[in-house]
C-alpha cells in the first residue's frame, strides 16, 4: 500500500448508488478508452462531481453502494478521478471486490455521521476515520486477510504479477 494515512475532502452521495449512476451504460462505447470514460464518473448522481473532485478526496455513500453490474470500470473511473478511498454504510459484493482489485481502499462505517464537504483523516492500518470538521471518530469493519494482501500490492493483477499465484 502506497500510503496508509489519507487526508481529503468528502463528496457525499445517498443510498443505492448503482454502477449505472457511477458510469452509465450509455458510455459503454468508451470502455476501451478509460481517460474519456472517466470524464463521466458519477455524472448521473452529481453532474458536477468531475469538476469538483481533487486528488486524495473521498467518495462517501450510504447503504448498498455500487449495486448493480459487475463492470470494473466503476471503481476504475472513481480511482482515475483521484479519489483515494470509498466509504459507505454497506457496499455491494461485486463492487467491493472490484474496488480492492483496482487498489482502491473501501471502508465500511457509519457514514451518516459524515457530511458533504467535511475533511477526513483516515488511518488505513488502524481502520479509523476522523472527521476533522465535526470531530466524529469512526472505525471501519475488518476486511478478510486475502483482500488486505491484494490491496497491499495495489490490486489483484499487480498481486498476481508479483506472487505468480493466488494463495490464502
Amino acid at each position: 500500500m502506497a500510503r496508509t494515512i489519507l487526508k481529503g475532502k468528502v463528496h457525499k452521495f445517498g443510498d443505492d448508488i448503482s454502477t449505472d449512476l457511477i458510469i452509465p451504460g450509455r458510455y459503454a462505447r468508451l470502455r476501451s478508452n478509460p481517460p474519456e470514460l472517466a470524464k463521466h464518473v458519477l455524472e448521473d448522481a452529481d453532474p458536477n462531481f468531475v469538476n469538483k473532485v481533487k486528488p486524495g478526496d473521498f467518495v462517501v455513500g450510504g447503504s448498498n453502494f455500487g449495486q448493480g453490474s459487475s463492470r470494473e470500470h466503476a471503481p476504475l473511473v472513481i480511482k482515475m478521478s483521484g479519489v483515494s478511498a470509498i466509504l459507505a454504510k454497506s457496499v455491494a459484493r461485486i463492487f467491493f471486490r472490484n474496488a480492492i482489485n483496482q487498489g482502491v481502499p473501501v471502508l465500511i462505517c457509519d457514514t451518516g455521521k459524515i457530511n458533504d464537504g467535511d475533511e477526513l483523516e483516515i488511518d488505513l492500518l488502524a481502520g479509523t476515520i476522523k472527521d476533522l470538521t465535526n470531530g466524529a471518530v469512526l472505525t471501519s469493519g475488518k476486511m478478510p486477510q486475502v483482500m488486505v494482501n491484494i490491496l497491499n500490492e495495489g490490486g489483484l493483477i499487480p498481486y498476481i504479477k508479483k506472487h505468480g499465484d493466488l494463495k490464502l
Partner: protein
Amino acid sequence: MGKTLAEKLLSAKSGAGARAGDIVISKVDFAFVQDTTGPLTLRQFREGGFPKPSSPKTCAIFMDHAAPSPNREQANDHLFLRKFAEETGCQLFEVGQGVCHQIVAEQFACPGDVIIGADSHTVTGGALGAFATGMGSSDVAIAMALGKNWFRVPETFSINVTGRFPKAVGVKDLILYLIGKIGADGANYKALEFTGPAVDRMTVSQRLTIANMAVEAGAKVGLFPSDEVTRAYLEAQGRGAKYQLLQPDTDAAYEKVIEINVDRLVPMVAKPHTVDNTATAAELKGTRIQQVFIGTCTNGRLEDLAMAARILKGKQKHHGVRLLIAPASHAVLEAALRAGYIRTLIRAGAIILPAGCAACLGVHQGVLGDGEACLSTANRNFKGRMGNPDSFIYLASPATAAASALTGEITDPREVL
C-alpha cells in the same frame, strides 16, 4: 451439522470443509466475459503476463450486449475479442447467438459446477445447481489464467415456496415480491436457496428467472437443488451425462428461513428507480407507458414468448406503444418460430430484435426519450439503465408486459386473460 447447497458446492470444489464465513480457494469450472466487460478483462489478463487460459475450452466470450454493434468503438471492441479468441482457443459466441446467461444455461451449466462471469447476472446458472456468480474483470481474468479464485462461503437464506400460482401470476411476480420484501440489499453477500413444493414443480426456465434476479437482492448466488426436472432439461440439451443429484442436508444451518405461499400472489411491478420499489400491477393501473420490452436473460425464453403470444393473439398492441421483443438466444428464436409465436407477435404489431441483450442496458435498440416510461421484463430499473436518466422503467412479468402493450398503460394481466 449438515451443509447448505453453497457449503456443499464450495466444499467439493475447494477440497476444504467449507462453512459459511470461511474463505476458500475453489476450482473454477467455467469462466466467461461479455462484450462490454470482456475488453478490460482480457487486457487485465494480458497485463498479468499470461499467454493463454489454463483451459481455453472452459472459457468463453459472448457478443451480446452491444450486438450488432451500435458504433465504431464497440465494433472495434468486438474485433479485439474475436482476435483474442482466435489466438487463445477460447470459445466465441458471435453476435446473434444470444445472451451469455441463456447460452451458459443451454450449453454449459450443470449441478456442482463453479462458474464465474464478468457479468452480475451470472447467478442465473444457480437454477441448474451451479455455484454461479458474477465478478469483475480482474477476478475473471485470473480465474481464466489459473482455473481458480477465492470465495467467501456465504451464509444462506432458505426460501421455502409453497402453494400454486394463480392464473396469470408466475415466478417473476414471486421474485419481485421477495425482493420488495427483503430489500435490494436484503441478501447482500448471502446465498439464496430455493426449495419447497412450488419449486419442485417449476420448469428450468422458471428457475432461471428466479436465480437471475437473486443479485437484485444483493445475493452472491441463487441456488436450486437438482432434481428430475434438472435431469430432463440436461438430457434435452444433450448433456444428460452431466447430471448429478444435489440437495441441501436436512440439518443444514440457515441464517434465515423465509416462507412464501403463492396461492394469493398477485401480478407485481417494480417502480422506478430501484427493484425493491414494488407495487401490485393493479395499484399502478392507469400509468401510461410508451414502450414495452419483452426479453433479456430474465424473461426472454420460450415460455415467456409463449405467454406474450397467448395474450396478444389476434389482437393489436396499443398505437401509442412500441412493443420490442428480443429472444434470449438463437435457440429460443428458432423454437418460437416453429411454435408460431413470432408470427403471432409480429401480427400484433411487435418488433422482433436480434437475440441478445437488446434494449436492456441502454446502448442500442430502444433507448427511451425524455419523460418516457417503459414496462420491461428485465431485472433492473435503475435510473439511466435504458440509456436516459430522464426516463422511467417499470419491471414486470411477460404476462403483465403483454397485457400493458394492449392497453398502453400498466395493466393487471388477469383483466385480459
